[in-house]
Structures are given as structure tokens and as C-alpha cells.
């Protein structure tokens, strides 16, 4: 998965990079090419003007040798391929390429075409129109040719040679051909640089993306995957380590929150299922077992009476009677637990239930010298609860607190708080005492049915009932305790929609907060 993300990102970014650089390069190289050609063109034009200027005098004097010399010496310069002059008929009069002299050029030839392309011969041309780029045969590189018409002027037809008539406008054409090899080399070098740049840009971005994906996505994602795998094998206590920041950190936090809630829900579900199946089992077993147990109990009692004189048998029978009664008590205990009064829930102020419970127990507090501190928040939202069950919860917790404090005077603090905290609004109730406390090793068991630290005295059902009631109300109960210092039970009851205090918009807000 990681590889895919990285690879896809790299491919995407690389193609964008390639396209961008290619377009840039194309624009840059084209304009560079144009600029270089223009430069060459300009130079060629200047050169042809120079040639024209420097040969003018020789021409007027009809000193052909001088013209040849100038043309030859210029034609030898580096980058200049050919310099030639041809007359109106296309006959090459002067040329740096001696072999060419005297040859007749066709009007279709590249150097003539500019003026002779239309039926009417053009006499004035712009610099661009005079320029041509062509590829001479047998040569790999291109050439740039520029023609420069030699116009008739007074000196020409007045000269002693009388070579030119007065009515002619153009006497001939000076054609300078320059090599573009240099320009092409430069452009090729630039293109190479561009390709190199593109490759290194791709390499650099890919490397950067790889690193980013690894550190920003890869590592957190592998942490998340690890977490998910742990949850998949049932390790709900697994926590994902700190992810630096960004959405993945949020994801990690949410994941941890989710597993915590899942663990919570699972624990509650486990407990409630345990209780429900226990109840069903108890009812079934009790029904089946009561009748035979009646027989055992009755007949062993008869036998006991009949064997009054026989000490040894009597003792044995007493064991049977005693143990049968124990069976009966066990069955009875199971059934007591499964007997739960049907609940009737209403919108209630939990403070009222607490105050009612305290009123009932008032005498007990006074007898035992227990100081009860009430810290009841006056502005609590109503909770949707069964008052009887809630009263049972507080009675059981308070009676436990009284027992834990024992004969020495102590204190019980009962506190209620409005807790809108993280998402779900809730009412929090805390019952703490300064009693004997609960050993940490019992924390897991105190809410189990039939677990009691009170020995014969306790039924072991008090806290199991408390747990059942709180769970039935969608709440939570927690215990903190230290041996010798006291115990603190913390109950959280949700303020639900059924409490009737919430408007629809509040609910929707809650939805958003929860999501």
C-alpha cells in the first residue's frame, strides 16, 4: 500500500515535471534558436553591406581583380561558406568558390526564389525576405543565406566601362552564405543541458516524495496498520504511538479512542451477557432442581430424626442436610439475582434521588457518627432513569460506605457535577468514604455477582446490582480505592435525548462532536 502511494505520487509528479520542463525548454530553445538565427542574419546582412561597400569602388572602376580579392579574403573567414555576386541574368560573376564562376543560376534556385517567386520581379525586400535557411546537399548542417540586391546608381551607368544601362533598377545580387553549424551546436548543447536538468529534477522530486511518503505517510500508516492488526487479533488494549501531527495524527488519536471505547463496550457487553445468561441458566436450573432437592432435604431430615440415637450416622446426615441447604441457598442466590424489577424511567433530577436516599439513611449516619458532606450541583440536567433502581444504587453504595467506615467515625462525601466534557453530556456522581478501602486485586471482581469481602454477612449482590443498574441506564461506574484510606465510586449517567431537555439542534451538534 505504501509503495503504491509513493509510486503513484512519484509518477504523477514526474510527469508534471517532465511536461513543464519540456514546454519551458521548447519555448526557451525556440526563442534562443530564433535569436541566434537573427544574430547570424544580422551579421550576414552587415557583412554583405560591408562587402557591397568595399567592392563598390572597384566595381565603379571596373577593377574586377580587386573585387575577386575582397570576395576571396572574406570568403575564407570562419563561418562564411560562400560569397558570390551574380548579375540579373543569374550568371555568377564573382564567387569565393572559383568553380562556380560563369555558371548560370536557375530562377528557381534558393538564392533567386525570394525575388522571382511571383510573376512580377520584386525589387525591394525586407531583411527577413532576403534571408533563407537551407541545407546544402552533402553537408549535415544548415546554412543561412542572405541576398543583397545591388541597385543601379548614377556612378554605375556613368562609369567608363558602360557596363550598365541607365534604365536598369537592379544590376545584380550579392549572396552571402553563412554556416549555422555553430548555432546548431549551441542549441544542441542547450537541449542537452535541459534534458539533464529534467532528469535531475525528476530524480530530486522523486527522492523528496519518497522521503516525504516514508516519513509523513509510510511510518504513520505502518503504525496504523500495526494497530489495526493488533485489534484484529483481539488486542484492544493496544495503543498507537504518538504520530507527529497532521491528519494522520488525528487518525491515530481517533483510532486509540475507538479501541478504548471498543474495549469498554466489549467489557460491558461481556459483563451484561454474562449476567443475562446467568439469569436464564439460573431460572432453568432452579426450576429443575427444586423438586429433587425437596426430596433430598425432606428425606435426609426424616432419616436424621429416625437415627436420633446413632451419633455417627446423625453427624453424617447433618452434613447432608447442611449441604443440601447450601445447594438451596446457591440456587436462591442465583434466582435473586435474575429477579429484577421492571424499570420505569422518567426524567429526574438525580439530586432528588440522592437526597431521598440520604434521608432514609440519616439515622444510620447519626448512629455510626458519620459526617455526610453533600456537594450537589444545583444546575444539573435531568437524567432519564428509574428512580427505584437509582435509589438502590445509592443505598447499596452508601451502606457499603457505612460498613467500610465501621465503628470509628468517618466521612462520606457525595458529589454531583454537570459534565458536558468530551461530546456526550453526562451527570457525574461521586460517592467517597474514608473507610477501610478495597484491595486493588479485588477491583476486577467487586462487580461480579456473589463476590463479597464481607464474609457471611454479605450477599455479594450489592455491587453487582449497582453495576447492572448503571449499565441498564447506559452509564458507567468506576472505582478508585486505597486500603486504609477509603473508596471512591464514580458514576457517569448520560444525559440522553429521552431526557427531553435537548433540542434537535443540540442533538445534531452532539452528532457532529461525536463523529
Amino acid at each position: 500500500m505504501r509503495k503504491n502511494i509513493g509510486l503513484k505520487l512519484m509518477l504523477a509528479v514526474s510527469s508534471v515535471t517532465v511536461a513543464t520542463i519540456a514546454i519551458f525548454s521548447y519555448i526557451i530553445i525556440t526563442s534562443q534558436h530564433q535569436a541566434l538565427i537573427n544574430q547570424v542574419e544580422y551579421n550576414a546582412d552587415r557583412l554583405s553591406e560591408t562587402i557591397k561597400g568595399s567592392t563598390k569602388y572597384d566595381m565603379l572602376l571596373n577593377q574586377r581583380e580587386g573585387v575577386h580579392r575582397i570576395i576571396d579574403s572574406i570568403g575564407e573567414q570562419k563561418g562564411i561558406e560562400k560569397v558570390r555576386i551574380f548579375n540579373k541574368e543569374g550568371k555568377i560573376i564573382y564567387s569565393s568558390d572559383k568553380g562556380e564562376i560563369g555558371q548560370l543560376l536557375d530562377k528557381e534556385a534558393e538564392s533567386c526564389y525570394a525575388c522571382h517567386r511571383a510573376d512580377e520581379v520584386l525589387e525591394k525586400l525586407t531583411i527577413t525576405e532576403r534571408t533563407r535557411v537551407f541545407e546544402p546537399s552533402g553537408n549535415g548542417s544548415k546554412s543561412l543565406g542572405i541576398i543583397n540586391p545591388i541597385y543601379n546608381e548614377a556612378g554605375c551607368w556613368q562609369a567608363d566601362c558602360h557596363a550598365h544601362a541607365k534604365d536598369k533598377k537592379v544590376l545584380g545580387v550579392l549572396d552571402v552564405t553563412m554556416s549555422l553549424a555553430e548555432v546548431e551546436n549551441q542549441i544542441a548543447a542547450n537541449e542537452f543541458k535541459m534534458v539533464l536538468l529534467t532528469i535531475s529534477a525528476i530524480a530530486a522530486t522523486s527522492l523528496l516524495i519518497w522521503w516525504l511518503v516514508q516519513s509523513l505517510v509510510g511510518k504513520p500508516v505502518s503504525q496504523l496498520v500495526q494497530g489495526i492488526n493488533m485489534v484484529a487479533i483481539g488486542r484492544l488494549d493496544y495503543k498507537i504511538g504518538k504520530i507527529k501531527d497532521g491528519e494522520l495524527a488525528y487518525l491515530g488519536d481517533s483510532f486509540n479512542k475507538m479501541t478504548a471505547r471498543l474495549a469498554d463496550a466489549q467489557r460491558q457487553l461481556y459483563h451484561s451477557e454474562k449476567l443475562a445468561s446467568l439469569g436464564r441458566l439460573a431460572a432453568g436450573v432452579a426450576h429443575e432442581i427444586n423438586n429433587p432437592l425437596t426430596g433430598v432435604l425432606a428425606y435426609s431430615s426424616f432419616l436424621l430424626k429416625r437415627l436420633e440415637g446413632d451419633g455417627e450416622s446423625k453427624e453424617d446426615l447433618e452434613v447432608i442436610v447442611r449441604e443440601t441447604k447450601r445447594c438451596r441457598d446457591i440456587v436462591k442466590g442465583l434466582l435473586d439475582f435474575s429477579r429484577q424489577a421492571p424499570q420505569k424511567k422518567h426524567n429526574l433530577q438525580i439530586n432528588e434521588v440522592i437526597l431521598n436516599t440520604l434521608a432514609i439513611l440519616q439515622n444510620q449516619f447519626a448512629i455510626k457518627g458519620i459526617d455526610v458532606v453533600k456537594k450537589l450541583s444545583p444546575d444539573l440536567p435531568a437524567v432519564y432513569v428509574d428512580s427505584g433502581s437509582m435509589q438502590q444504587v445509592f443505598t447499596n453504595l452508601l451502606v457499603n460506605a457505612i460498613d467500610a467506615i465501621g465503628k470509628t467515625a468517618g466521612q462520606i462525601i457525595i458529589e454531583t457535577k454537570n459534565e458536558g466534557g468530551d461530546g456526550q453530556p453526562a451527570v457525574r456522581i461521586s460517592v467517597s468514604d474514608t473507610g477501610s478501602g478495597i484491595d486493588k486485586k479485588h477491583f476486577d471482581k467487586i462487580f461480579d455477582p456473589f463476590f463479597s469481602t464481607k464474609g457471611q454477612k454479605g450477599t455479594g449482590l450489592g455491587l453487582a446490582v449497582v453495576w447492572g443498574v448503571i449499565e441498564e441506564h447506559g452509564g458507567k461506574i468506576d472505582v478508585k480505592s486505597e486500603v486504609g484510606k477509603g473508596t471512591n465510586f464514580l458514576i457517569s449517567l448520560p444525559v440522553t435525548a429521552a431526557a427531553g431537555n435537548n433540542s434537535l439542534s443540540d442533538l445534531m451538534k452532539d452528532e457532529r462532536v461525536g463523529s
Partner: protein
Amino acid sequence: MAPKHDILIVDDEPIVVLSAQRTLVPAGLSVDHAGTVAEGLSKADSQGFNLVLADLMLPDHSGFDLVTELRRLRPELPIVVVTGYATLESAITCFKTGVFDFVAKPFETGELLGSVQRALRFQAAGKTSESHFEATDNNIEYYGLGKHVQVRVQPSGLAVVTLGVTFPHFMGKTLRIELPESGTTILQGNACAKIINREGEIHIVRAPLTGSVLEINSQLPGNMKLLDIDPFNRGWLVRMAPTQLKSELQHLTGFARC
């Protein structure tokens, strides 16, 4: 008409019938039995008994039908329901129809004898609770699980449990009383006191309400006479904090004293 038998047992479980017979016959009581509601009704109607022991789980009809029908046919005939803890709630509701007592299976012989003898004595005394009558909603002084046990609910919510009118003077010579420890939670219908007499009869007092026991009458073990001479005041049994008061009151009957 003189009854052929003292007691009719209606139960479909032979071992229970046998156990009851073996318990009651040595006490000088004659016993007949029926296995179904129909048979029980026909025997009770035609033969006349001093007492009916009725199971609540019978093959043809519910024991509740048997009880209500018996109450209609023979209102003077005391009924003791004998049933398991699984049907305890039904047993509690039976008190409203006028059932005398109930014995939970599996029972000790003393427990069955206690209920049966007390019922027979109460019946023989021709006792109709002349000084107590069912109250209207306005003049309720106390509640009762039938006439079995009474409870006064104080304004604070504290409940004081005392014997019902079927106990005092009908328990024989009381020997000792067993009361629960304070702090224990007792469910409605479970034993909240056991009174044992010299004949070995065990008279179980059922809790009228579910709640935590806050206090027990510490005078009682040393002064059992209080149960006979002042059962509704000084002879109180336990004070408890009821936790299901509202829902459980509907199983109770409101009484007033004249």
C-alpha cells in the same frame, strides 16, 4: 361436614407430595393429593379440607388459576402456596388473592410444618382480622403482603417491618428468632426473619419490600414475648431502606386499623 382429610396437596411432582406427606402425617395430619388443577378443584369442592397446599406449576393450568378459583369456591379455606424460587414473583402476587402463606421449595420439614400449623391454628381460632381492614387510598396506615407481614413507610422513605396478623399467638411457644445482619440487601418475598418454636416449626417472615437492612430490633432475641404482646410497635423486626418502593407497593395491600 367433617373433612375426610385435613390437607389437600395439589402438586404433580411425586417426590414433593411424598415429602409433604412424610412431614405432615407424623404431626397427626391426614393428607390427600391431586396432580392437576382440575382434580384439585373437584376434590376441594366435593370433599372439604382444612387447608390446601398448592403448587404454582401444574400440568393443566397455572397454579394461580387454582388459587383464584379456590378462593371463589371456598373463601374460608386457607391456602399455602408451595413453589420454587423461580416462581417467587407469582407467589408474591398470590398474597393479593388472599393466600395465607407460601413455602419455598426445597423446604425444610420445619418450614412446611410452620406454615401449615400456623394456618390451621389461625383457621381454628376463627380469626378474621377484625381489627384490620383493607384501606381506601386515603386512610392507608400500613401495607401488607396479604396478612402475612406489615410495613409502615415513614415520610423519609424508611420502612419498618412488623409481623402480619397471622403470626402473633399462632406460632406456638417461640424459642428463638433469626434476623438478618444490618447492611444486607433483602429482596421482596425472601426471608427477613425466621422464628423457631419449641416443636421445631420454622415460621418464616417474608420481606414485604426489597431494600437494605439498616437496623434490626435488638430487643427481640431476648424478649420474644414482644412478638405476641406488641407485635406492631415494640415487636418490630427490621428497619430497611426500600429501593423499589413504587413498583413493589402494587403487590401489597393497603390496610387501616380501627
